[in-house]
């Protein structure tokens, strides 16, 4: 059995959306699916639609992760477009992950254009990591709405606070220059909050604000007390 688990997204103190992660129930426990490639676009989109139907009216946006192969698949492009059309009250965002793939930039840009035509937003996940480096970012720029910076990629590194700041500064500036929303994920504690506070993230996400949980029928808007 597959479900979407949602990790809360905050804009300032407002819980306004979720990043959705697929989980599979195995022997009574929820875990990462053994193989993402076996999940077809149609099944994925049906599950997404069922999840959106459970969302409260205060949820304005949900994001889902697609790797590069999934991103250019016709099934995903068409089916996700249908889901967005069926649920216009919630903005669907596709987060393009930074994992290496045998996909050309041209294919990615063409696919991005089709998602945007279906009114779906594109977010570049883990900017500055993997394939989501500045050169690709500049090429796909017209179709992207959001840059997402991952603090967790710097956790555990020596001199974490000083090493992460220049990257945050750079991507914050890039987002401002190109009129994109800037999201920071990977907040795990108050130290992360302090480091990131000068970089004015539009969207914040991380274990500090909430872990992914099963999406059930919801009723009230949650406002963070942090």
């Amino acid at each position, binding site marked *: 059995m597959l479900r979407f688990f949602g990790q809360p997204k905050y804009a300032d103190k*407002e819980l306004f959306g979720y990043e959705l992660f697929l989980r599979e129930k195995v022997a009574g426990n929820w875990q990462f699916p053994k193989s993402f490639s076996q999940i077809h676009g149609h099944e994925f989109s049906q599950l997404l639609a069922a999840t959106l139907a459970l969302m409260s009216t205060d949820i304005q946006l949900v994001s889902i992760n697609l790797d590069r192969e999934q991103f250019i698949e016709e099934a995903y492009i068409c089916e996700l477009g249908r889901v967005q059309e069926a649920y216009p009250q919630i*903005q669907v965002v596709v987060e393009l992950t930074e994992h290496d793939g045998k996909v050309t930039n041209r294919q990615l840009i063409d696919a991005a254009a089709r998602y945007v035509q279906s009114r779906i937003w594109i977010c570049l996940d883990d900017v500055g990591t993997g394939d989501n480096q500045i050169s690709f970012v500049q090429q796909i720029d017209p179709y992207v709405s959001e840059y997402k910076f991952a603090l967790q990629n710097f956790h555990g590194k020596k001199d974490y606070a000083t090493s992460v700041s220049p990257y945050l500064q750079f991507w914050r500036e890039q987002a401002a220059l190109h009129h994109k*929303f800037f999201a920071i994920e990977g907040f795990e504690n108050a130290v992360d909050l302090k480091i990131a506070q000068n970089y004015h993230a*539009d969207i914040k996400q991380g274990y500090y604000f909430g872990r992914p949980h099963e999406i059930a029928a919801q009723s009230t808007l949650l406002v963070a007390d942090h």
Partner: protein
Amino acid sequence: MVNDKLTQLKVHAQHVGDRLSAMVLPNIGAFIAWGLIAAIFNKTGWWPNAHLATLVGPMSHYLLPLLIAYSGGSAIAKHRGGVVGMIATMGLIVGSSMPMFIGAMIMGPLGGWIINRWDRHVERRIPQGFEMLTNNFSAGIIGMGLALVGYVLIQPIMLLGNRLLAAGVDHIIHTGLLPLANILIEPAKVLFLNNAINQGILAPLGTQAASVSGQSILFLLETNPGPGLGVLLAFSVLGRGVLRTSASSAIIIQFLGGIHEIYFPFVLMRPLLLLAVIAGGVSGTFTFTFFNVGLRAIPSPGSIISILLMTPKGLHNLIGVLAGILVATVVSFALSLVILQWYQSNRRSALSGRISTIQPVKRVIFADEAGMGTSQMGRRIFEMKLQAAGLEIPVQHVLIQNLVDESDVIVITRQSYAKWVTKKMPQALQVVAVDNFFNAPQYDELIKKLRPEKII
């Protein structure tokens, strides 16, 4: 063609009036405090106290004009605009013997506008890390420049204008057309230009006349509460939302407390009401002339209580003074009702789901509660759509509790707050309620309506 020009003129006059009123209304509390201190502790007050009365001068000379300047500047460029507006106004205040309210209404917004244009021009050119330095020095240098311009250029013009008004009133009095003096006195009052008339003409001439005959009608020309009372009564009947409730309480402060300044913003908001106060003032003075009544000395404050205390003994005098106040009130009230009804019938067509072609849009406001970040994001999305459409309309984000009612604005807010915002902004062209700040279909619908000819 002529109709279009008249319409544009009318719209601009209303826009100017709204701006002037928006500078005074938020600071009414300060005006009340100043008026009460004067009424209680001045030499002619209810409980004279020379020490406490020393508060009156600096408050009217510094506090009130600076508050007006801050309101005017911050409406354009937030706190920075307010600060620069205040610095600029100091140039007018220093060296002037009269309170510079109208000067503050000019320099405050001017300071805000200049710093706003500067910030937009240099925004992308400031080197990284130099933002604070540039912002602070630019505010200081621009403020300094405006203060000097105010001191050297604007202040003498303001003083000249005042003297011309006073000379005009003096001439009218000496040609024996006393009731017509209110044609100049009433607008001068509303624009805070009445000091030169009061202290320069009416008080000395009145005192001279009273020393001979024991009374003078000149003491009633400016202090008659009738014209202002008529306007406030009309607003308490026909006003909407916060205007109606504040007009009702303003009546007590104006008529019984003698703080006339409280009705000035109401007239500034609807400039045509100047006709009502002029008609009220002229008819009141005509009635005083008809009954041949006057006061023993200048009533301070200009409340009904002080006026009656200054009325010479005798039933005839009492009837004459009361008749003049009553006639002024009735005439002002009747005309104000007609004028307000005319304004509201114009507004009804603007609020019936479409933006009227005679109501250009001054700006768009995204209104929300504190801590709700999606409306800030929605503001940026809408701003980019406006830019893509080639429309230069300012878009601001304002907390709902800080909203100040004004016309010519469109307010966008979330569905659950729509009623609250509508109550706070009854004059707004439109309140748009959205379910989702990221992809509201109302954004594109609104932009289709916002043609260039609708923009101020």
